[in-house]
């Protein structure tokens, strides 16, 4: 696959990496500078001199410490749950014949792009005292209305439910890259099914598992929607604390300190990951490292004993009739998980068309009255229009900056390319809430709070990694010899781009734009901070209403979001080249 060197010219040639310039500038200006400013602030007292007062205050007050403990333990539990359920799901997807996998993938990707707010709102409705589950339990004679909400269990459950598609989709590329022939080879060498899985497939899938764990853990750290909606005060997490400290008390020092701590933990986790697997493994690339030493040896021993246990278990299960062939167990489990992923979202459909004045399932009658309420409310329609506008602007900005940067990074031979790559991935790695607070801090100084422009600029920032990665993958897989071929056939530079390069990459650029749109359309955190309670986007409007009162109008709004997301998602998947 060696590319021919273009004839060397005497004159100085700029590395294509300069194309990443605008994006890098944007990231530095809107992310690095305000985040650094915020950190700086956390080490100052109110008079402006160096002090660790804020940190003493944070770690001194029992309430803050409790919130920190809550945040980390909930994030940990969520991560473990996501890995335990997501691994079988990803494994199941990886083993499918390609054609069927493409279909089933849709059912995982759709909930992946569904907003977290929607999914959690669904659980709020389903699990409440008047919810479906409570009704069923009552119907079965399990006593009066059961309240399943407001506890650690339901918070971890709903958070894991929200992040599960992320976990499964992160693990999938690694599992797919494992040659199925290896497990077969292990069996011809005398390994049982369990031995082949634990000794060969499982160790090879570790980079994907760790990447999924990393992403879920980091996302969970700054996540506040689930604890706020489904948790009790005892489940208060850092995110909620930041909202009160910043929005109500404007306590910048403490906000800075919390942001610093989240950043430090995030970076530490990333570093550990990088030491073990190499950070590029997050994007599914195989690293060349081989872990040696104590941990590797412990790992080998653990795997060997797990494999032995599976063998014994398999021996026992073989005796039970019907369990001799166990493939269906995985099928059944994964189908159940898929149903769990989809049902909470789809359940809005009948409820939004209900006729009674509160949310019920199944509805007793059907009507369009809640859609009329939505339609006649200037709050809702205004928020919807604003969300559309902001999403289009930020998707355009992100595609333009991310697209040319992706081209530059893909074509660059410079080592700085990796740095640029990491920089563009930064908004995905840094917890969203930290970005939101940093932006709030910056925008407060330049008068962009409570403006549509402010929200759009923020959404552009967080949409950048999504757009960048999609287009980068396309350019990395692009066969540049096609361009050389076009040149030898007489095409000019422009002609090559117009007739060869663009038609081939067009699909993925369109897909990137649409995914950028989706990202902004559903984004809550930045809208919450930067919107300042004045410029309401659709998710923000929903958030306020959910906190206030659960009404059927919310279900109608959810159906509208669901419809937009589904249409844009289908269009994006359609545009994406295979």
């Amino acid at each position, binding site marked *: 696959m060696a590319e021919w060197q273009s004839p060397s010219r005497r004159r100085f040639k700029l590395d294509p990496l300069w194309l990443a310039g605008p994006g890098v500038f944007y990231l530095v200006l809107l992310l690095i500078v305000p985040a650094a400013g915020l950190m700086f602030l956390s080490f100052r007292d109110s008079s402006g001199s160096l002090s660790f007062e804020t940190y003493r205050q944070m770690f001194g007050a029992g309430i803050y410490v409790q919130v920190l403990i809550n945040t980390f333990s909930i994030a940990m539990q969520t991560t473990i749950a996501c890995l335990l359920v997501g691994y079988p799901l990803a494994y199941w997807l990886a083993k499918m014949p390609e054609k069927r996998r493409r279909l089933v993938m849709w059912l995982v990707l759709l909930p992946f792009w569904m907003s977290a707010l929607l999914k959690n709102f669904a659980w709020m409705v389903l699990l409440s005292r008047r919810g479906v589950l409570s009704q069923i339990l009552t119907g079965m004679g399990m006593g009066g209305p059961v309240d399943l909400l407001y506890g650690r269990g339901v918070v971890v459950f709903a958070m894991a439910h929200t992040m599960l598609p992320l976990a499964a989709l992160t693990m999938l590329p690694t599992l797919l890259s494992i*040659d199925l022939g*290896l497990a*077969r080879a*292990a*069996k*011809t*060498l005398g390994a049982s099914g369990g031995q082949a899985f634990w000794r060969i497939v499982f160790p*090879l899938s570790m980079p994907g598992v760790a990447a999924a764990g990393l992403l879920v853990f980091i996302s969970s750290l700054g996540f506040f929607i689930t604890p706020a909606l489904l948790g009790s005060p005892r489940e208060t997490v850092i995110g909620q604390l930041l909202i009160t400290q910043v929005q109500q008390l404007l306590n910048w020092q403490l906000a800075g300190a919390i942001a610093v701590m989240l950043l430090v933990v995030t970076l530490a986790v990333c570093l550990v990951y990088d030491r073990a697997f190499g950070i590029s493994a997050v994007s599914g690339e195989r690293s*060349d490292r*081989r872990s040696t030493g104590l941990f590797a040896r412990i790992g080998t021993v653990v795997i060997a004993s797990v494999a032995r246990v599976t063998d014994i278990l398999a021996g026992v299960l073989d005796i039970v009739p019907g369990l001799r062939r166990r493939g269906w167990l995985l099928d059944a489990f994964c189908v159940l998980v898929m149903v769990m992923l989809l049902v909470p979202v789809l359940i809005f459909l009948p409820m939004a068309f209900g006729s009674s004045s509160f949310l019920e399932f199944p509805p007793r009658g059907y009507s369009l009255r809640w859609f009329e309420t939505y339609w006649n409310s200037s709050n809702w329609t205004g928020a919807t229009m604003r969300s559309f506008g902001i999403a289009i602007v930020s998707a355009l900005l992100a595609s333009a900056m991310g697209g040319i940067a992706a081209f530059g990074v893909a074509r660059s031979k410079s080592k700085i390319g990796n740095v640029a790559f990491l920089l563009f991935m930064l908004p995905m790695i840094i917890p969203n809430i930290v970005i939101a607070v940093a932006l709030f801090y910056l925008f407060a100084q330049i008068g962009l709070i409570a403006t549509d422009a402010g929200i759009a600029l923020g959404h552009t920032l967080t949409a950048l990694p999504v757009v960048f990665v999609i287009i980068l993958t396309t350019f990395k897989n692009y066969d540049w010899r096609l361009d050389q071929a076009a040149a030898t056939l007489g095409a000019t530079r422009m002609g090559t781009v117009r007739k060869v390069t663009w038609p081939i990459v067009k699909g993925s650029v369109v897909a990137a734009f649409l995914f950028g749109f989706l990202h902004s359309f559903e984004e809550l955190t930045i809208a919450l901070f930067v919107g300042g309670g004045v410029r309401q986007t659709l998710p923000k409007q929903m958030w306020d209403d959910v906190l206030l009162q659960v009404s059927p109008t919310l279900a109608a709004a959810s159906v509208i979001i669901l419809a937009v997301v589904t249409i844009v998602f289908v269009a994006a998947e359609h545009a994406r080249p295979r």
Partner: protein
Amino acid sequence: MPIQSQFSPQAGISPKLSVRGIRKDYGATTVLQAIDLDVRSGELLTLLGPSGSGKTTLLQIICGLVEPTSGSLFIDGRDETSLPVNQRDIGVVFQNYALFPHLTVKENIAFPLQMRRLPVAEIDKRVAEVLDMVNLGHTADRLPKALSGGQQQRVALARCLVYRPSVILMDEPLGALDRKLRETMQIEIKRIHRETGATIIFVTHDQEEALALSDRICLMNDGVIAQVGTPQEIYEAPANRFSAEFIGLSNIFDGAIADGMLRSADGDIPAVAGMQAGDGLMVRPEHIALTEPAQGFMSGTVTETVYAGADTRLLVALESGKSIIVRQAAGIPIAPIGSSVGLNWQPSAIRIVR
């Protein structure tokens, strides 16, 4: 002239491996049609055929990765048709080697022994032995990806030899190597086969490789066995048109048989005893001698010459337009393109093809 088999099985010993009426359907398509095949203990048998002939399917059925639609498989006289793959005394060398990328060379080779719960000391000893056998002792602690293609191939072989399976299956193991390396590995495989006395079933679509390696060749086409025999038998006495055309180069003449002659469009050829209507006669390119025009059995015009060092191949267009190939050993002046030539051969060089 009857051809003596080079391979002489020990009298009274039943075959190592017997395929009895094995058939495989995938939906409506039949990839293997009721095959019968005996593999003798200690021989190197090649399954040779074009892609889609069913050779790889047969191999996968033998090692237990694919279950046959019907028929049985006997190893050492025991019916092992439905024995799970990990309980068969069989070793497989895969086309892409299937080395475990996260394990070192040593760990890869130790894997089958660990699965058999051998004591650690025994494992170490055997791994060292087999690494010596394939000359890879210095690579023991490297990961597979740090090895060259030929070295990976030898690790795959070592991983298979180390647990001493009585049957070794090789699925186009040399396909990914370049020509030079392939020839070195062929010699290596022959040496190891001789040293270990293992029964080897080798799948390939490369006829030269099959001729070079095999004790016997099982030639397959369209899911059936076309011919089983030693390389010499198959080359010199092809049982049918497919065998004649697949192995080596051949010129086949067809026509009606009358008065003890085959009346081909380009001239009459004396028929061979036992010929039936529809049979053709075959002559190999190296058995054809060029003569003056109008002498010999038929004549034609040289249209192309291909120089190949040890010999030169000439394409000769006959009067009917049919092209035949003639092989001239080095040292004879090459007939120039456009010259008219006569074609002659010894009657004993002629074979019937059905």
